[in-house]
């Protein structure tokens, strides 16, 4: 149990997908203007990443590895991810038109979110079981959502501040997220190996 918790912690914080691995920066910069949009994006991406991690494990272990088709990995994973994103888009459009509108182009772009494919590929390298793979995907997605929310909160505050004209808009956002990345580097001090039995 403790080990599973550590896996979650290490994927969400220590090896944060956005700020340590620098994957999925596009939606983090794009959909972090308001907390509401960030939460919606975070939840949608969490759903996709977790499902993609599970599906990729199934494909890898039941299809690609037995048939020796490792070279098709990226192709098949993208296929599955695209299908999951399409499904998510349909679902959100049906259940929450407002969120659909505010996510805009970033919703179909989850397909090309490198965090999704990245997590699926990294996951395969770890040689986990199915449950751990799902947990790995969920933890990474949790880290993604956390950064998205924290950054959206910061940007909401920065929007109220008086920023010098040269820094207004995107520059101050990049400065902010760099500082956030520095802060997240502090988590690498959490030595997960030592704590685990």
């Amino acid at each position, binding site marked *: 149990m403790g080990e599973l918790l550590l896996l979650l912690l290490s994927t969400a914080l220590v090896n944060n997908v956005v700020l340590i691995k620098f994957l999925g920066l596009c939606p983090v910069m794009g959909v972090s203007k308001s907390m509401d949009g960030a939460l919606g994006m975070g939840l949608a991406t969490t759903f996709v990443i977790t499902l993609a991690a599970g599906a990729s494990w199934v494909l890898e272990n039941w299809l690609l590895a037995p048939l020796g088709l490792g070279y098709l990995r990226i192709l098949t994973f993208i296929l599955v991810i695209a299908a999951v994103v399409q499904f998510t888009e349909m679902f959100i459009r049906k259940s929450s038109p407002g969120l659909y509108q505010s996510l805009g182009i970033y919703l179909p772009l989850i397909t090309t979110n490198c965090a999704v494919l990245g997590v699926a590929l990294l996951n395969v390298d770890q040689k986990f079981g199915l449950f751990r793979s799902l947990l790995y995907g969920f933890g990474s997605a949790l880290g993604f959502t956390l950064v998205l929310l924290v950054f959206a909160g910061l940007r909401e505050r920065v929007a*109220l501040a008086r920023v010098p004209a040269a820094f207004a808009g995107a520059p101050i956002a990049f400065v902010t997220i760099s500082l956030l990345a520095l802060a997240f580097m502090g988590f690498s001090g959490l030595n997960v190996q030592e704590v685990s039995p």
Partner: protein
Amino acid sequence: MGILTTFKDWFGNDWGVHPDDRKRPAADAAVRVMPVPERLWLPLQQHLGAPARPVVLVGQRVKKGQLLAEAQGAVSAPVHAPTSGTVAAIAEITAPHPSGLTLPAIVVDADGADEWGERVGCADPFALAPDEIGRRVAAAGVVGLGGAAFPSSVKLAGAARAGVATLIVNGSECEPYLSCDDRLMRDAAAAIVDGIRIMRHASGAARVLVGIEDNKPEALAAMAAAAASCAEIRVCRVPARYPMGSEKQLIQALSGIEVPADSRPADVGVIVHNVGTALAVRAAIRDGQPLISRLLTVNGGCVVAPGNIEVRLGTLAADVLAFAGGLHGDGLGLARRLLGGPMMGMQIPHWRVPVVKGTSGILALAADEAAAGDADPCIRCASCVRACPVGLLPLEMSARIRNDALDAAAALGLADCIACGCCAYVCPSRIPLVQYFQHAKGELAARERARLRTDATRKLAAQRQERLAREASEKAAAAARRKAERAAQQSAAEKLVQGEPA
């Protein structure tokens, strides 16, 4: 923000500010009575609610106390002639309002006789039914004289309906510079107590609490002595702290009851009236005198002879100042012209503004008394958070308003802001916080009006569509009928033609 709210809980009892009160020496000078000026300007709206409707004609002779304009609507107040004379015009005059816009007023030229019209007094007010007192107070045009000018009869009637237990009489007068309530309590304590007893009778309250700040010991002593014989009236000393005179703050200080944000004092069984209002109610009931004059404070560094002056309503501030001895150096060092106190009063563009029912003071502040200078950026010291008597976060709200995020400011409780000015007073960066809040409130109200207007437009457009459809269908029906008639005529004619040979 979470952290700020936590701090707010720790220092919750530290609300308000302690400005230098500067009430003396004006408060200690004897009251002067200003003679009736030649011309009086009586705005039709001197109160909260709907403006009054004129009932006199230009050129008509009026007696002192005669009705000039009647109340219209549930919340409104009539206007009476402050002296006898002739109605010279119904014209526009600069409103006692920071906008500098005008509003319609009845202009009365005094004839100098100052002759009373008919007055119906009452020797024993306690024999009158409470709602009869309310009617007479309404007819006399009495409004809250503390500054808000809410029609008193509406408050009394509401109190009787809601069954309030406590009547609080506000003698705290927390605004710096102002001392007219202080002076009234010192000079006319017995009459005020009589007025309070009449109001208690009208509102049905069981007990009366009179709150007076401890920087007015003479008024406290005078009121305590006058109320000594009335067991139900308790005169309470409250600490001098601005804004103690704000309704909800005074209620909490005196009775410990906190009025919730979205409800009125009557909802928790309390009503609040000003001491000046008590005196006006007494005059209206005992002597049948409508509200035609008031005591106001003329003060500020530029005034030659500061003090309290009894002034007829409609007198121009310029005339009052001239009577008070004018300004030092003809107003050379004048920095701000204010009606009301320095914290909540309104800045006026010039002195040709009439005294209305809610005018508690005329202040001519010199440069060293008026805060000036450009605003600096907010340093997030949170002094305003500690000072806010309502428990809001002024720095957060103003930052949002500066970025036009009015809904976000409203979500932080903008509607509960009482515009007391504590936040702007303590701000080390001199940010005009109150102006931000007033701007946002006005803008939100305008938006709400626009929304109602859009709704009305939608209804009108739908009705027009309905009308057009109805007209079209009526036209079609008429055409069909005509066609049928023509067909019938034709067939009848044909029959006739066919039948002729037979």
